[in-house]
Structures are given as structure tokens and as C-alpha cells.
């Protein structure tokens, strides 16, 4: 044995090196240092302000003075249920539901293609194609859509060129979904919501489909399952967590948005706009808070239902 070689190397010098050694000896300290900033951020700043908001929804506003009455009451929630406010809730939830279902239908084939067939260069093209719209400003996209959907816009021009203006007009004369032009109809709002939130449905869906092993599809076919049966009994149940994840995005983003319905659509309020106007000019913070609680309750209920239906069993 060569005795000049030491078994333990000499301790390192300098404060930083000692600190690094100390972190190695105390892994919990390292964990604490890494977790502290996000916990402070999420726990205090985010959850704290959310809690303050929730508390406000149980206060009420004095109708004469316009001051907030800091006493526990359910009066504000009762106010949510007056017809004008209830209309806003029903309108927003219906829109969010329609957008979510449409997003599932549109996203599924795209996600399936990307997960199953796209390889190498095509896969890169897929990711860029999906992500690129997210890189440009949200407002620019919405105004671009306004130009597309307006009466003087590209879509009307296209219908005219195809001699199908009568079809568009017939559609616009329908109650509820129609209007003076697409850009001031619920259909327009729906199309823009669908476009803007679609990537948030495609990406989780694609991730879920990618995790479905090919041999499960083969096993289903082997046992007699046609493509349709394999889709229904194997692909869909296994992709369900992805569908749920995507629908959480599309549903909650639609519930909370206040810009799209303001620019495109029939100037009737959605929840987001109601919150915006009540906390702003009207100064009715309690009612704004009560409106803001609605999406939280709906999402909580939605997740609970999804869990009960077994949507997360495959995880």
C-alpha cells in the first residue's frame, strides 16, 4: 500500500465551499432553501389574496353610502341569483361548456396524430404549429379574428365568392347563436375562445395519448375489437386524464376571461366582465368577489365529478 495517498482528502477552503459541504451534510436544509421562495409566493401572496377575496364575498355593500359593511352575511350571494346576474352565470357556463366540448372534438385527431404518427421533423413542426400562436399577443389575435369575422371581413368575402352568402345569412338569422354579423354574435365569441384555448387542450391530450402503449391497441384488436371499439374501450378511457386536464384549462380560462367577450360578441356580460366592472367603477367588491367564487366552485365540483367517474383511475 502506498501510505502517501490519503484515504480522506483534505477539507476544502473558502466560505462557499464550506457552505456546499454543509448542504451536502444537511439535505433538508437544501430542500428548505429550494422550496422557500415558491412556498412564500404561492402560500402568502397568491393564496393569501385569494383568501382575502373569498372573505370579501361574505361581506355586503351599503346601498346608500356605497361603503363595505364588514359583517358576515349571505346577502351578496343572494344578489348573485337575481335574474340579471343569473343570466351572466348561465351564459358564461354554457359558453365554457360549448368551448370545452368543441375543443375536445377538434383537438383529439390532432393530438392523436402527433402522439402516434408524427416523428422527428413532423413532430417538431407539430409543436411549433401548436405553440406559435401562444407566442404572439393575445390582443393581436383577437383583433385579427375581429377582422376575419366582421361584416366587411374575410369570411363574408369568402362566402360571397362562393355564392353562399344566403347560407351565412340564414345562419345569422338563427336566434341566440346568430346576430348582425359573426363578430357580434355568440358564434363569433365561441370561435375565438375555441381558437385561443385550443393549444391548452391539444398539449395535455397529446401527452396522455403518448403514454398509451401501442401494444394495448394491438391487444384490443387481437381480442376482436374493431378500430371504433378499441377507441371507445381503450384509447378514450386511457386518454381521459388528458381530456380532463385540457378541459380544466379551456373551461376555467373561458369562465374567467373578460377581454374576448368584450371585443367579439354581443356586448352582453360574462363573469369576467361582471367582476371587472363591479370591482372597478361600481366599487362593489363583495359582489365582484362572489362572482369570482363561482368559477372556483364550478371547477371544484367538476373535478370531484371527474374523480367519481373514474377519470383518474388510469393514472
Amino acid at each position: 500500500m502506498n501510505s502517501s495517498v490519503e484515504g480522506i482528502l483534505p477539507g476544502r477552503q473558502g466560505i462557499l465551499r464550506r457552505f456546499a459541504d454543509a448542504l451536502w451534510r444537511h439535505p433538508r436544509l437544501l430542500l428548505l432553501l429550494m422550496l422557500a421562495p415558491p412556498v412564500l409566493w404561492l402560500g402568502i401572496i397568491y393564496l393569501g389574496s385569494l383568501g382575502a377575496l373569498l372573505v370579501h364575498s361574505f361581506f355586503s355593500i351599503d346601498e346608500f353610502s356605497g361603503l363595505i359593511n364588514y359583517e358576515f352575511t349571505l346577502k351578496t350571494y343572494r344578489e348573485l341569483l337575481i335574474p340579471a346576474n343569473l343570466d351572466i352565470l348561465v351564459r358564461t357556463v354554457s359558453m365554457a361548456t360549448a368551448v370545452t366540448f368543441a375543443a375536445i372534438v377538434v383537438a383529439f385527431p390532432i393530438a392523436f396524430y402527433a402522439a402516434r404518427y408524427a416523428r422527428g421533423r413532423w413532430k417538431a413542426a407539430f409543436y411549433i404549429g401548436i405553440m406559435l400562436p401562444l407566442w404572439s399577443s393575445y390582443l393581436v389575435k383577437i383583433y385579427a379574428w375581429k377582422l376575419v369575422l366582421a361584416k366587411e371581413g374575410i369570411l363574408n368575402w369568402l362566402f360571397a365568392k362562393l355564392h353562399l352568402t344566403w347560407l351565412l345569412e340564414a345562419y345569422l338569422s338563427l336566434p341566440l347563436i346568430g346576430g348582425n354579423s359573426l363578430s357580434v354574435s355568440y358564434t363569433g365569441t365561441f370561435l375565438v375562445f375555441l381558437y385561443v384555448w385550443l393549444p391548452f387542450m391539444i398539449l395535455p391530450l397529446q401527452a396522455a395519448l403518448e403514454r398509451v402503449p401501442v401494444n394495448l391497441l394491438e391487444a384490443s384488436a387481437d381480442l376482436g375489437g374493431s378500430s371504433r371499439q378499441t377507441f371507445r374501450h381503450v384509447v378514450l378511457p386511457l386518454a381521459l386524464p388528458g381530456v380532463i386536464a385540457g378541459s380544466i384549462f379551456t373551461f376555467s380560462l373561458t369562465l374567467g376571461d373578460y377581454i374576448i367577450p368584450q371585443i367579439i360578441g354581443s356586448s352582453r356580460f360574462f363573469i369576467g366582465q361582471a367582476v371587472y366592472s363591479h370591482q372597478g367603477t361600481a366599487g362593489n367588491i363583495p359582489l365582484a368577489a362572489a362572482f369570482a367564487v363561482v368559477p372556483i366552485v364550478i371547477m371544484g365540483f367538476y373535478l370531484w365529478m371527474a374523480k367519481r367517474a373514474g377519470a383518474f383511475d388510469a393514472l
Partner: protein
Amino acid sequence: MTAAVLFSKVSRHYGLVKALDEVDLEVLEGEFFAMLGPSGSGKTTCLRQIAGFEQPTSGHIEIFGETAEGVPPFRRNVNTVFQDYALFPHLNVLDNVAYGLMIRGIAKTERYRSAEEALDLVALPGLGKRRAGELSGGQRQRVALARALINKPRVLLLDEPLGALDLKLREQMQEELKILHRQLGITFIFVTHDQNEALSMADRVALFNQGRIVQVGTPQEIYRQPDSSFVADFVGSSNVLPPDFVASVAGEHRWASLRPESIRLTSSDGHEARVTASNFLGSSTRLTLYVGELRLHAMVPSASAVPVVGDNVSIDWDRQDMHLMEEGV
């Protein structure tokens, strides 16, 4: 007997790679047929053609006399036990097994009863409510087997079904599969890279190499009379003797194979050999010997006085144990 599966000049190419190259094959009805070969030799590709997961690039496949071209997997009366079992993770064991019946629209009570029966058949009763993920490897294997058998296939395909199991369990499953085969009387086609498994289980073995079948025969034929040095070496790692050596011993200028266990140690007037390695394997000891420049392996009983590395020994074998082969390489 009718052929359960008949291949004529079946090829399957992936770009320039010939995974299957003009394969002719006949599997008889009721047979336990093994497809043996190293990985990438085409045996699994061959199985996938029978299941219908892939279509041949050229050639013709018949299943019980009916052409299989363009017939999707779900219209073939053939079921598969997959290599990694491919159990549905979102279903419990009973629903996994009953899947084939559910697809065919059989009522719940009836298909669960059949599934319980199938689980009994593979000696796995009472686990129906568990998820596939909660089972051990051996149990999953049995569930996969029950699931494949529930549709009462005429041909059961097994793709390396025992590969992931440990030795003890594997030997037990080999026994049970043989019993199951006798009990059901249907055709089993079994893919494996383990020559012991193929030899011990199958009625007939097809040995694959580089997309071709190099020899088909009973385990005894394959073992005792290999056609080529590849077969001799792959099945039981036989010694391959070059023509010059064979000429000096047997007088014929041909390649020959000599099984390691056919070599015995003699006291004198055998071939002079030098021991370069001696590995104790329990009941026997494996020796590496050099006779001049020729390297040989020998299996000798451990009971006798076993030579150690560096010893010079005298070895011999019976003339009829030396099998002359058609080709060398």
C-alpha cells in the same frame, strides 16, 4: 392433418431490412410449435404476421386454409399472449379477461362467469377485483393467458411469454403451459430465444436466423442432427469441428458437430488436450479445452475428479456422437 398456419414465400421488409425473407412454414393443427432464434432473427415478425398486426411485403399466408391477406387482427380466430402482457391498466383483472366477450356484446353476468372459469383454468381464482398493476409478474402472465383463451381461439400465439419471469417460476409455467396445451387441444405457437424452453416444450421447433428459417424439426432432430454450424452452436452450444479435423478423425472432409456432453475424459489413448478453463455448474463442470489449435467445450460430471486449469488430459468420444453437417457457416 390440416395446416393451422401456412406461409409460402412470406417476406416482410422494413426499408432495406429484410425482417422476414421468403419464409416457408407449415404449422399443423393441435401442434405445440416453437419459433426459436436470436433477437432480430424474424421470429416475432413472423408471429405478428399470423396475428395480423402486420401484413407481409410479399408472399402468401393461410390460416386453416383461408387466405389471411388483408384480414385485420379482429377478424382472425387467433389470440396472442403479449411479451409484456399488455393488460389494460384501467380495467380490473376480471374485466381484462372478459374483454373479448365484452367486445362481442355478451351480457355482463355471462361474461364474468366465463372469465372466472378462464381464471380457474390458469389457476388464478379470486383475484378478479384487483388491478393489473397490483399483480406479480407471474400472476399477470396468467391473466394474459386467460384473456387470450377466453375467445376460444384455434391458434394461441405466445410471444416470449416467460421472458420476464425468474427461473423457478419459468420452469413451473413451462410445465403448466404443456398441460394446458394437452387439455385444450388447440395449436400453440410459441416464440422464444431460450433454446432450453423451445426444446423442452415444443413438438416441433423452427430455428430462425437473419429473417430465414434455417431448420425445422422435432427437438431431438434439431439437437442431434443440426443442419449447420449455426444450429449446432445456437442449440446447446455444440462444438463445431472444421473439415480438416473431421477428416483426420473420421476420414470424411466435412463439417461436424459434437455435443459437449459427448466428450469424456479417458485415462489414455484419446486426444491430447490442455484445460484452459473449468467452471463448476453444480451437477456438471464445463471445461474449455484445446486440442492443438482447436477449442472445444466439454461437460463432465462433477462427481469425478475434475481437472483444473493447466492440466493436460486425454479426451475421447463415440464416433456416432459426431454429427456430420451439410454446411459449415
